[in-house]
């Protein structure tokens, strides 16, 4: 499984959405499933899946799928 597939699977499970919804343009708070509560679930799931620890700024800044990838890339996750 590629890192992108792992990321998509994590979004699907955490937000309870379809895989085809997980595109770079998907933004936080633009769908009802990605609210503040789901965001916490998503952060925890991404940290576990990619074995990283995000800081406060990264958690706040992670406002889209694209930015999530950029943040994970800073933690040496290659997409």
């Amino acid at each position: 499984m590629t890192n992108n597939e792992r990321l998509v699977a994590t979004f699907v499970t955490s937000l309870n959405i379809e895989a085809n919804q997980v595109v770079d343009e998907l933004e936080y708070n633009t769908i009802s499933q990605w609210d503040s509560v789901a965001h916490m679930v998503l952060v925890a799931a991404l940290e576990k899946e990619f074995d990283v620890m995000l800081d406060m700024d990264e958690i706040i800044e992670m406002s889209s799928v694209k930015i999530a990838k950029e943040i994970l890339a800073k933690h040496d996750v290659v997409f």
Partner: protein
Amino acid sequence: MIFKRYQVEFRTVEQDDIEQLRQWRNSDDIRLMMVDQSEISVEQQKEWFEHLHTQINRYHFALWFRDQLIGYANASLDEPYSASTGLYIGHEKYRGSMLAICVGVGLSEWCFELLSISNIKAQVAPHNQAALRFNESLGYRVVEQNDNWVFLSKTKNEFEQARKGLLPTLSRFV
């Protein structure tokens, strides 16, 4: 500053805050979730502010994050041993963000630690599923519901159980 939790400062509401708070409060996405959904005029806001210091058992907070006003919260002791709370994050960058959870948890902690209460109540419109999910994540359970409102309540123990699940992520905000 009255207190600080999870990087959010709960400050006294000052004159300079009230116009920004009024504009956020009047925006549809916040106003339409309120018990009182009427628009607040400049004069009404000024009058509200001038009476804040006379209110007993009602606490009003301007919420600040990194030296920016981001929203408002309150706690009221309308019944013996019970508080009701409310909050909104108005700053566009932080609206609906993790900071809302930081405020919700911080406010509940403050209420249970400093007020002589056994439970905290909240009231949410039935269509506001985001607020229902938000409150349930903070330990609230539904105690009553009618066509217009869902009434929620939580004990200190229920809150602490819910907080356990939030702390791994919240710990990044300490």
